[in-house]
């Protein structure tokens, strides 16, 4: 280097100052009631519970615990609204309500993103750039179907089912609410939505939005509570349709309980997604894709690429780059705009992750865990990669639902497919290769409802999402997503 250079002792590092989003933007109220028949009211028992910020274990707000009587009232309200108002509302009108809701979500997007991050623990960058925009887009997309159902491929005049009971999980609270409500309303159903116990708040802000949109009372009812609220909804005789997203374990119970009833059912359950990497994968983008596949949303994703199936010829190099990249992940305050990985949603989930990860070690896999510092308070798990995992290991078969990746190898495309399919799940897979014909060959043979090629965890309102086998049945998104809510 030329000696005519400026020596500057400050150079050579760029430590990011904290860049926190303000929690006050959430405008949280101290307590929320149940949203039934277009208004908020206490639970019949007046019972409440706290929703907690998993990043610091502090209470965010009190929400109502809906009991059997409240569920009854909500379903009755939905039925009344269906019979008297919504079934008589034209598609064009329904369309405009949905467009209004979409616009309101866009307008209140910053507030919703902060609420979501506070209640769920996910980084604000993700709530802001992924969850909220997708939620708005889902309402826009289905708003556009409401007035043209005759073109959806389900007949000249497809009818709705009636009252839909919808139970959603805690990993993408607002987005899951959008995935459930938008198609149901577009098709002409009314809804009773039960948000997850640990993440009720964004749904309650959505209720305010429904009020602002002047959606007729009872068309959507939002009732908060624990598992018992969901069970009461599933069992309610006046519900025509149940839509559930959550664990396979609970999905199984719901299917059993509704088996003898007239209720239509769709389930979106767990997964153990295989991210298949061939030796000709575009290497840097593939590393990012593996990272996105398992550490996006702290791995709390049903379609997470939680198994890396890497071609043996490049396994060492891929692992080396992966571990290097994992070290770079910024784990910490979800409200900090530069955070990559946030908090685990609950103490219960953290316990589950720890248990299964301990198995990984005891089964003999090689563990790499990020050396990142974890905050003192809150629920945290450092991103972890297990190498030398065998097909028979528990961590290769069971859904961990956390930031833990299991790495296995394969030799041929055939073997990759066999290993990927060797599971009772069938939700999502990834395929990384620059050879299109091989990617398509593999995709044809993978038993998964969603296959990503040279990317991962991409969602779009127009693209159908859902699983095969024990990952559930039914699709959300796209034209196919209407089927679940029509009597066809």
């Amino acid at each position, binding site marked *: 280097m030329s000696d005519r250079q400026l020596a500057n002792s400050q150079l050579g590092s760029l430590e990011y100052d904290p860049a926190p989003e303000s929690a006050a933007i959430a405008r949280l109220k101290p307590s929320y009631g149940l949203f039934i028949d277009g208004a908020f009211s206490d639970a019949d028992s007046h019972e409440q519970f706290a929703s907690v910020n998993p990043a610091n274990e502090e209470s965010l707000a009190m929400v109502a615990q809906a009991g059997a009587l409240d569920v009854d009232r909500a379903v009755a309200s939905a039925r009344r609204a269906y019979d008297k108002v919504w079934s008589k509302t034209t598609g064009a009108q329904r*369309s405009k309500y949905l467009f209004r809701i979409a616009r309101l979500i866009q307008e209140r997007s910053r507030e919703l993103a902060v609420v979501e991050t506070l209640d769920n623990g996910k980084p604000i960058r993700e709530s802001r750039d992924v969850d909220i925009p997708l939620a708005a887009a889902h309402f826009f997309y289905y708003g556009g179907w409401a007035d043209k159902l005759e*073109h959806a491929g389900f007949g000249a005049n497809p009818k709705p089912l009636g009252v839909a009971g919808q139970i959603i999980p805690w990993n993408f609270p607002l987005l899951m609410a959008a995935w459930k409500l938008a198609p149901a309303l577009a098709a002409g159903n009314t809804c009773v939505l039960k948000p997850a116990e640990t993440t009720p708040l964004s749904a309650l802000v959505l209720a305010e939005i429904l009020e602002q949109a002047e959606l007729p009372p009872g068309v959507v009812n939002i009732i908060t509570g624990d598992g018992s609220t969901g069970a009461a909804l599933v069992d309610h005789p006046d519900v025509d349709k149940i839509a559930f997203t959550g664990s396979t374990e609970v999905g199984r119970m719901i299917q059993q309980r509704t088996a003898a009833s007239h209720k239509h059912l769709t389930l979106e359950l767990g997964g153990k997604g295989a991210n298949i990497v061939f030796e000709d994968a575009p290497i840097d983008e593939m590393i990012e894709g593996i990272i996105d596949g398992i550490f996006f949303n702290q791995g709390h994703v049903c379609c997470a690429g939680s198994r890396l199936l890497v071609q043996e010829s490049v396994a060492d190099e891929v692992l080396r780059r992966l571990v290097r990249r994992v070290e770079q992940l910024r784990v910490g305050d979800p409200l900090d705009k530069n955070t990559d990985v946030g908090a685990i949603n609950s103490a219960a989930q953290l316990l589950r992750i720890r248990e299964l990860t301990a198995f990984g070690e005891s089964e003999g896999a090689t563990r790499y865990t990020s050396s990142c510092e974890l905050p003192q308070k809150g629920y945290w798990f450092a991103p972890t990669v297990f190498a030398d995992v065998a097909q028979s290991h528990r961590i290769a078969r069971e859904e961990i639902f956390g930031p833990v990746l299991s790495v296995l190898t394969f030799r041929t495309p055939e073997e990759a497919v066999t290993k990927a399919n060797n599971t009772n799940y069938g939700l999502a897979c990834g395929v990384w290769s620059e050879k299109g014909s091989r990617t398509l060959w593999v995709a044809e043979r993978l038993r998964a409802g969603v296959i990503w090629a040279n990317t991962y965890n991409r969602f779009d309102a127009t693209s159908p999402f859902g699983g095969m086998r024990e990952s559930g049945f039914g699709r959300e998104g796209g*034209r196919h997503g209407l089927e679940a809510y029509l009597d066809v």
Partner: protein
Amino acid sequence: MSDRLDVRKTYKLLINGAFPRSESGRSYEVTSAKGEFLANVAQGSRKDVRDAVTAARAAQAKWWNATAYNRGQVIYRLAEMAESRRDELAEHVALAEGVNARTSQKTVSASIDRLVWYAGWTDKVAQVLGGTNPVAGPFFNFSIPVPSGVVGVLCLQESSLAGFVDAVLAPLCVGNTVVALASETRPTPAVLLGEMTSSSDFPAGVLNIVTGITDELAPVIAAHEDVDGLDLSGVTPETGDVLAATAANSIKRVYRPHEKESDNSLRRLRAFVETSTVWHTIGQ
């Protein structure tokens, strides 16, 4: 009763996102259905048509390359603008078509709902008109609907707003750009809607509106070789025959409305769409 003099509006062309007068400097008188003076509207020339086509062509690739979601957002915003200025539109429809306030309000409502209908089509056309084809061999084969390109629309003469919306939004929502020749005798609602596109994030050149004498300008559009499609809604069947023959010189896609077109027909959407089919081998 006020002595205040109101500021009268000049009705101009819409070309490439700007509002010029006709390059010919001409204008012509537009009266209400009852014969009262309404406005001096720009009388477009063949050069204006030429400029509009140039603008539409330049804008087309970018309009099609935007996401379908984005196109839907833009069209929905036009509906928002139209709703917020509905009284102005209703007033012009009433004067132009000689109907009462109640009827014109209904027409405006229906037209706005129609804009919303089209806004919701942009990201669904591919799902309804496209698909995968199970060819008898190891190939992944899929068909996608792509826009024809630049579409010349001879707008309905009588239906000054609702007809305009249908004729123009159908090609737009599938990704074409449009040169619209507005109704000769009832152009002002279309001109108003054109103004609203500029506050709706419509990229320049996507929708161009030329007002003028139909018999003078329609043959220019029909003959222009850089126009890919032609909608003959605004001319008589006899004139249509002649123009269709002219259009044949450049193998344009020609759309002629049916007597009774049902509201939910997709004929207009399909008229200016091309099907592009891709084959890709499947193998290890």
